[in-house]
């Protein structure tokens, strides 16, 4: 499993302007992070709730549809959330991409 995680990390690290990457398990426990601990735990808690709600919303609007990614564009960053069965991946990018 850790090889897979390293691969995911490497893949996203090659993207432009990545400020940090967090990989959570399905229970929102951080299993890998490039950011400091406090921030990681903070993101984990809030993103997990948002991702769950968004996924439920998508399937309630259309049972045959499925959420792939959530992108939150803010003034200072872009936060990309990729939920999947095994992980929740959070990538924080700086703007200018």
């Amino acid at each position, binding site marked *: 499993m850790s090889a897979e995680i390293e691969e995911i990390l490497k*893949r996203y690290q090659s993207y432009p302007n990545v400020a940090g990457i967090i990989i959570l398990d399905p229970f929102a426990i951080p299993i890998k992070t490039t950011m400091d601990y406090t921030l990681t735990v903070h993101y984990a808690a809030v993103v997990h709730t948002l991702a769950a709600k*968004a996924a439920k919303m*998508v399937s*309630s*609007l259309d049972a045959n549809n499925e959420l792939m990614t*959530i*992108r939150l564009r803010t003034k200072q960053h872009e936060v990309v959330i990729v939920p999947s069965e095994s992980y929740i991946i959070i*990538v924080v990018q700086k703007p200018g*991409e």
Partner: protein
Amino acid sequence: MPRDSVQETFNRLTELPGVMGAILVDGSGTVLRSNVNESASQVYANRLVQLVTMSRDLVRDVEPSDDLAYVRLRTRKQELMVATESQHTIIVIQDVQSLDQTRRSTSASARNSTAYDRGSVS
């Protein structure tokens, strides 16, 4: 904002490539403009306004000096773009294929936008 320019902006939005629907919602969750049927508009409005509030709280929570610009939800069939400005929320529903095509033709952004799609990074 004068009514004509709201309508104009709204019309311009609906003419963008791949736009399947556009819904403008006011601060109290009432649908102001939409090119989607009324009941569907209201359903989308209710759910997405909630989601965007949650997203904005997330952003402010993690970084109090930051603020949410917009939320993009990419699903298998569509991409939902939700943006808020003062009290209004605009929801744009776009077809994924047209979006990707537009992005591919401006290749720099395509590298970033489509690559996160789980389908293409397996």
